[in-house]
């Protein structure tokens, strides 16, 4: 196997708040290889239930450890939330097409995230601290409890703006309330990750204003390797697999039926 399958030790599981968890794996090779926007495909159960692996964006890769940031919502993620330090997890990765790094002439990097979709941007902002562009994060969450990792972004000189559905933090409403923070210029580059309706709004906005950008898509996955063609989504180039052709796609290629 070309370095993509490994069994790694859980270095720690941290309960971040009422909603989120962080899980760290001791995986130096993986930490070295992974690029922002790529995911790891974790075998969450030793048995057949659930059968499929679960994909998670890499949230951080420092000190030989790879971290994911997740919310337990179902069978697979709840099993992960029950992991203990020292447990072994079978992982495929890093997989998928990463975000492209902002070119030197980019003056504003705009991260747009919904909910747990913020995960890949932590790694991304870690890796572009030296880039001279202004960096902003427009973050939409359900409530204040969903806004935890933002102080970490501040350390990476990313200015965060928040919108919450219930108005308990930042501006009340959807993340689109924050689009005014985006410089309408050819030197702006958007990176988005979150629920599909949010990405549709971002894509429509970018199209209307002529902005460039990329978005990370989600779809139910089986293999994660481009083998089953199960995670295909319609794009302007025909059906493409989220796991292998994506998860990152150019905003202009996305089709929202």
């Amino acid at each position: 196997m070309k370095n993509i399958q490994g069994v790694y030790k859980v270095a720690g599981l941290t309960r971040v708040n009422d909603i989120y968890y962080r899980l760290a794996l001791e995986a130096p090779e993986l930490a070295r290889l992974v690029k922002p926007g790529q995911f790891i495909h974790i075998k969450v159960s030793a048995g057949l239930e659930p059968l499929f692996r679960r994909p998670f964006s890499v949230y951080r890769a420092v000190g030989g450890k790879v971290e994911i940031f997740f919310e337990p919502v179902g069978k697979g993620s709840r099993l992960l939330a029950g992991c203990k330090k020292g447990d072994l997890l079978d992982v495929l990765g890093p997989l998928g097409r990463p975000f492209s790094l902002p070119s030197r002439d980019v003056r504003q990097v705009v991260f747009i995230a919904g909910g747990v979709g913020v995960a890949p941007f932590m790694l991304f902002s870690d890796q572009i601290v030296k880039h001279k562009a202004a960096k902003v994060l427009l973050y939409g969450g359900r409530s204040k409890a969903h806004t935890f990792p933002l102080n970490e972004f501040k350390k990476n000189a990313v200015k965060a703006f928040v919108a919450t559905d219930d108005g308990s933090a930042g501006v009340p409403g959807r993340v689109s309330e924050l689009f005014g923070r985006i410089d309408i210029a050819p030197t702006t580059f958007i990176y988005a990750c979150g629920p599909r309706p949010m990405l549709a709004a971002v894509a429509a906005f970018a199209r209307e204003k002529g902005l460039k950008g990329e978005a990370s898509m989600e779809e139910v996955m089986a293999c994660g390797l481009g083998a089953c063609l199960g995670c295909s989504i319609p794009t302007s180039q025909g059906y493409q697999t989220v796991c292998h052709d994506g998860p990152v796609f150019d905003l202009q290629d996305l089709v929202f039926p």
Partner: protein
Amino acid sequence: MKIAINIGTAVFPNPVTVASGTFGHAEEFYGQEEVKKLGALVPKTVTLNAQQGNPPKRICETPAGMINAIGIENPGIDRFIDVKLPRLKAAGVPLIISISAHSEDDFVLMVEKLNEAGGLSAIELNLSCPNLQKKELVAQSAEATSGVVRRVKNVSHYPVIAKLSPNVTDITAIALAAEEAGADGLSMVNTFMAMAIDIRKRRSRIGNFTGGLSGPAIRPIAVRMVCETAARVKIPIIGMGGITNADDALEFLIAGASMVAVGTYNFVDPRAPLTVLEGIKAYMRAHRMTDIRELIGSIER
């Protein structure tokens, strides 16, 4: 230890292969040496013209299994031969090319193209395709199965394997029809028609409404079908349905399959076919078997 298997004139170095549609991009995640350990490579079914496949959701997870309705997304036979086949040939593993078509004529046309392309070990006919003007699949009719197999056998330079659907009352009747029409081997089974419903949205969880069930959930039925069929046909069977490890594969071999294929479980563990092969060898050593034929069909009846 003799573990090579013949199907017609084709020779496979060992009995472990992969199920069509479950092992794309192998060259990217297997090392070159690892791919060579497979008994054969079976790529996804190819059709005469390119097919774009079904709209999402194409898959859903079910207890110990999955439902899929991919819609045979493939580039069409010409592009397959030009682009994919050279790469597959370079892998240095016997190739079983799976094809499907909407008519006997189209099957023949595709086989002629493959004759010309060269370098195959065998052709697998995916007969889970519509039987023209009828509501059934070709694989659901002994007559239609026999018709396709006979026409293909007339032209094919390669041994022909008929892949059977389990969605029938008596699979042995279809198997016998394929054998009589000249098939060199059988592949069984394809997926079971199934559905799963999202009770919140009261919608099918599959974009195509229904799909095919595969994975460990179907294994006991597949083993039974292989066992019944092996008792009645003389041609070799490639057994599949929910194989995850060597023990599962051994059930098929003991039931009478000559080869086994890992399908859905490749999605969980892409190395599963290699583990299965090692496990079969270990079992043979432990039981002092020197020839895989001592194992095949060894069930006490």
